[in-house]
């Protein structure tokens, strides 16, 4: 198993260098999502929170793409926009060459079976009153796949794949532990044989030992079914371990995007540098990667648009230079494949 897995990593690393032979499966173009906070009172100006601000990301077929950032940075909103659980304010979501925002409801259903989502808390995302069999079968029913017998067979097949005894499928979700319930949620997502799985913090609610089981399993089925993952995670260590490429979000925009190892070993954006230095390392002999660089303040999702760099108020570089004050930095390719939105990339290094 280890051998196979090592090969896979090898291939994906190759891909990061070559880039050309892989196809774009999902392309997010200039995605914007505004939430209207309050509009009580006639004539009062409405307050708008821009949760996702002009995000563009291409996800390659077969890769694991990570979205990381602190709570409120917009990572879950992006996922919800992709599944059209939220209607984006503007922008495009192109899946296998089709702009899904332009599709009719019927056409959308056809595309949707190729993209599925798994949520953070399995006990909240599985209907507590349905039997596990019915939960996993439901997508097949909705998409009119097969007859009753074929569906039953498929459900048993998928449950077995995720390591749940099909004989226990008459039980309801509460009879299963968190790790098992997350496998059931995965079975529901996999039953239609999708191309893309959007995983929103799928292991955050699980204990470390169970987390390892689920991550290993996700790796296995990715190879077996050639799945593409969009992996939303706040745990940077998991992101570094599990993802091929990672985008760091700050207040709804991409601050930095690169190959996972490159991003965590050679962060260029001061926000990424401070995130990486804040992660507690489970090794008392070698505490932290360098000294901790504590950011002042907290993420403040401001309603009104401020001028200049969105990170400047918390920036360890001070953010007081005129370029930081006046212009929001664009996301630029600093070195091949390594994108960063900072006027002074690489100026702040991980402290040693």
């Amino acid at each position: 198993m280890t051998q196979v897995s090592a090969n896979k990593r090898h291939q994906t690393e190759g891909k990061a260098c070559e880039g050309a032979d892989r196809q774009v499966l999902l392309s997010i173009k200039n995605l914007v999502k505004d939430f209207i906070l309050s509009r009580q009172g006639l004539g009062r100006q409405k307050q708008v929170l821009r949760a996702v601000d002009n995000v563009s990301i291409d996800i390659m077929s077969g890769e694991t793409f990570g979205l990381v950032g602190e709570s409120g940075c917009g990572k879950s909103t992006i996922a919800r926009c992709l599944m059209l659980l939220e209607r984006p304010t503007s922008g495009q979501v192109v899946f296998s060459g089709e702009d899904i925002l332009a599709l009719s409801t019927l056409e959308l259903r056809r595309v949707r079976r190729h993209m599925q989502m798994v949520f953070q808390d399995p006990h909240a995302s599985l209907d507590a009153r349905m039997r596990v069999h019915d939960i996993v079968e439901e997508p097949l029913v909705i998409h009119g796949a097969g007859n009753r017998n074929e569906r039953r067979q498929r459900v048993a097949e998928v449950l077995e794949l995720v390591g749940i005894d099909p004989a226990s499928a008459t039980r309801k979700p509460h009879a299963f532990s968190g790790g098992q319930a997350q496998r059931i949620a995965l079975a529901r997502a996999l039953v239609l044989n999708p191309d893309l799985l959007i995983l929103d913090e799928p292991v955050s609610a699980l204990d470390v030992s169970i987390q390892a089981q689920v991550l290993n399993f996700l790796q296995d089925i990715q190879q077996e079914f050639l799945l593409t993952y969009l992996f939303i995670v706040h745990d940077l260590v998991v992101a570094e371990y599990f993802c091929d490429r990672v985008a760091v979000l700050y207040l709804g925009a991409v601050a930095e995007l690169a190959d996972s190892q490159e991003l965590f070993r050679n962060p260029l954006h001061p926000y990424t540098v401070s995130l990486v230095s804040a992660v507690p390392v489970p090794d008392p002999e070698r505490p932290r990667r360098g000294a901790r660089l504590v950011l002042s303040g907290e993420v403040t999702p401001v309603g009104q648009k401020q001028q200049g760099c969105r990170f400047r108020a918390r920036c360890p570089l001070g953010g007081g230079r005129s370029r930081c004050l006046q212009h929001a930095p664009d996301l630029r390719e600093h070195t091949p494949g390594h994108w960063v939105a900072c006027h002074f990339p690489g100026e702040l290094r991980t402290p040693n």
Partner: protein
Amino acid sequence: MATEPEHVLSVRDLRTEFHTENGIFPAVRDVSLDVYRGRQVGIVGESGSGKSALALSILGLVRPPGRIMSGQVLLNGRDLCLLKETQLNSVRGREVSLIFQDPMTALDPVKTIGKQICEGILHHNRGTSRREARRRAIHLLEDVEVPAAAQRMNSYPHEFSGGMRQRVMIAIAIANEPDLIIADEPTTALDVTTQAQVLDIFESLVRSRGTAVILITHNLGIVAEFCDEVRVMYAGRIVESADTRTLFRNPVHPYTESLLRSVPRPDQAHDGKLFSIAGLPPSLARLPAGCSFEPRCIAGRGKPLCQESRPKTTSVGEVHASHLAECHFARERHEAQS
């Protein structure tokens, strides 16, 4: 014996059970635990291993259907299990205080922050004037680095962010300079950068005051950075205890070893799989006859000894009781490492 470190807390054979319709759940099974003055002790384990039940038992906060069945909780030499509720109230907050995971449920939403900090000060210090309490409260908020402390005294908890609320919880916990603070997953709800801020503040405050801390967490990274000693809990028992370096370098109990190996590490080689512990923790209502970790164990699974008899606590350290593990193969495993 003069060099013997001073005990703040000494828990002896503490047993807490929850009696429910579905059976008896011994959440804490005859646990002994020593905490010395000024030491930071981490308790790690999976959910359901009894970490929080142990903390609540120490503070006498176990509520029905839970009950402390036997054992002693000696805080500064006095057995808290024998105290009445009114006596406990004068101990809690003054000698020992608790920081919860979720400050939003621990703080009163209809009282200002200032009032809640002052309450604790006034309760334990008869004769302190309100003005004096308020002055001290502002000082405490400054200690936990809440900006514009004097103004924020009049704010309500919902006006604070998660990190700021947890700082307020710390301020309340240290208000009466207790000898021991029990922090139950204090930073789990926070983002990494906020977590780093809060832990740094907490650490400098307890170190400068010489406060002993029991830090309950499932994050091994936090234990490695913050704690002097570690206790690993599994199915209601402390299965291994050692100082932090020893535990991370030479884990003797197979559960500890598995736990450490299943965490992805930064800088780790990216090929290969994560190590994972097979199976699930046992139900406390139906514990195996032998070692409770046997069905999942990398060393003892299927061995008759492990299936049939419960392992005793074995000392493997050079100093007596410096490194304990509850495993039939503790000695062999320890020798194999060194």
